[in-house]
């Protein structure tokens, strides 16, 4: 995608927003200008930045945790038919459950603070990465494995030179697919049992303080969080998987 087109799309959306705000003409839909001014105010003098960082940290921590646990587990399942036969029915049942319905349960068990939020996002990412890495490891052609083994590679070298690089794109694809859901569920999770995070901030300004421009500012920041993570994954993919661009 061209950068110019992206910019054009962004400006068009702002114009559309502006026209809608003019048309609706009620406090529940402020103009982009009013929101941007409120956003600036909240970022510099309010504590929106702290709320943003709280949400950001939760996503990053759970992502790291999910990659570090799900990628090795997926690699193991993908290499061993026996392990996969054992676990795949469990995964088959758990994978499609919308993890957002687990929010109340996780909150009950882990109470207030960051941990329950991190766990919820972790659960979403974990299954996605697990399944994609498993399938990519299982999908490696036996001829490729045999031919690398014929070069002298044992289990460790196969892991280092074949399985590890082969699972990298799967991890990134899984992140790309689920980072949006993760941010959405984070929002829901932050409505409960916390006073930090964008979810709390948006809810507080919208339903208690009735500060609509500030609320919209929070929504913008949440969108930026999702967008930024998505771009981040894109950037990593371009850095780490140059052959995908070349093909």
């Amino acid at each position, binding site marked *: 995608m061209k950068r110019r087109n992206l910019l054009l799309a962004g400006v068009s959306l702002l114009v559309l927003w502006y026209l809608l705000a003019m048309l609706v003409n009620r406090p529940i839909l402020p103009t982009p200008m009013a929101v941007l001014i409120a956003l600036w105010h909240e970022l510099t003098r309010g504590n929106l930045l702290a709320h943003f960082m709280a949400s950001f940290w939760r996503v990053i921590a759970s992502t790291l945790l999910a990659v570090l646990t799900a990628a090795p587990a997926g690699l193991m399942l993908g290499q061993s038919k026996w392990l996969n036969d054992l676990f795949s029915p469990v995964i088959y049942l758990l994978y499609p459950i919308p993890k957002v319905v687990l929010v109340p349960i996780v909150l009950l068990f882990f109470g207030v603070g960051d941990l329950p939020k991190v766990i919820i996002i972790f659960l979403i990412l974990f299954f996605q990465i697990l399944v994609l890495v498993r399938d990519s490891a299982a999908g490696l052609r036996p001829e*490729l494995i045999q*031919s*690398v083994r014929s*070069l002298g*590679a044992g289990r*460790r070298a196969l892991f280092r030179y074949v399985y590890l690089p082969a699972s*990298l794109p799967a991890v990134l694809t899984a992140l790309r697919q689920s980072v949006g859901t993760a941010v959405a569920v984070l929002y829901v999770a932050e409505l409960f049992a916390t006073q930090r995070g964008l979810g709390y901030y948006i809810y507080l300004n919208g339903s208690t303080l009735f500060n609509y421009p500030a609320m919209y500012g929070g929504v913008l920041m949440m969108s930026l969080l999702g967008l930024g993570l998505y771009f981040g994954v894109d950037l990593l993919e371009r850095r780490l998987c140059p*052959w995908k661009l*070349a*093909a």
Partner: protein
Amino acid sequence: MIELDRITFAYPGAKPLFQDFSWQVNRGEAWAVLGTSGCGKSTLLYLLAGLRFVQSGQLRIDGSPLTRPRPQTGLIIQDYGLLPWATVRQNVELGLRVRNFYGPDGTHAPRGYKPSLEVEPWLERLGLSSVVSQYPGQISGGQRQRTAIARTLALQPDLMLMDEPFSSLDAPTREGLQRLMLELWAEQALTMVIVTHSIEEAAVLGQRILLLGKSPNQTAQIIDNPGATADHFRESETYSRMCRLLRERLEET
């Protein structure tokens, strides 16, 4: 160099492909293994590569029974076996990287091996200098197979095993690579075993030809073809006669 002493091999639940089968390959020979599909010719190569194991009898290379892939054996397969995420240069370096990873332990790399990543001469010899930083997905089938050959030769093998290496290439590319293989065979003093279903390829590359038939294979049917590796053999009368003979024998089995 290779001794098969009354070996038996069967896949689980299938009748044996080889039964009490014996065969010998001397150092420096160029062999072609010819047969129709399902005759066990690829299996034979995988046995020689140490990727599958005989159920009875003995398979010895250089006098010692084979229990795992041998560092001095190179294997080339039909679909190249290249890493799609690595450039041509990185793919050619792969075998050396694996050796450097383990060090000269005698099982993954020969004892006395000195770690190196020197592949430049091989890239040049195989005409890959212009594509070193491309990925396998970006180059032609012939270039991919050259990459696989360079990767194997960089390990300085004494035994080269090839499983239908040129079957998916177009005719001019195939003939070019067959000539190149014969040059390399002479240059590097290789022992070469090439598995093929193509009568023409067997006639051109095999000084000696092992014919496999319906399983179980019990005796080695061998046809001598001493002219094979000579220049312009392809245009000779001997070549045409050899192809006819092989065709007849293949129909009988």
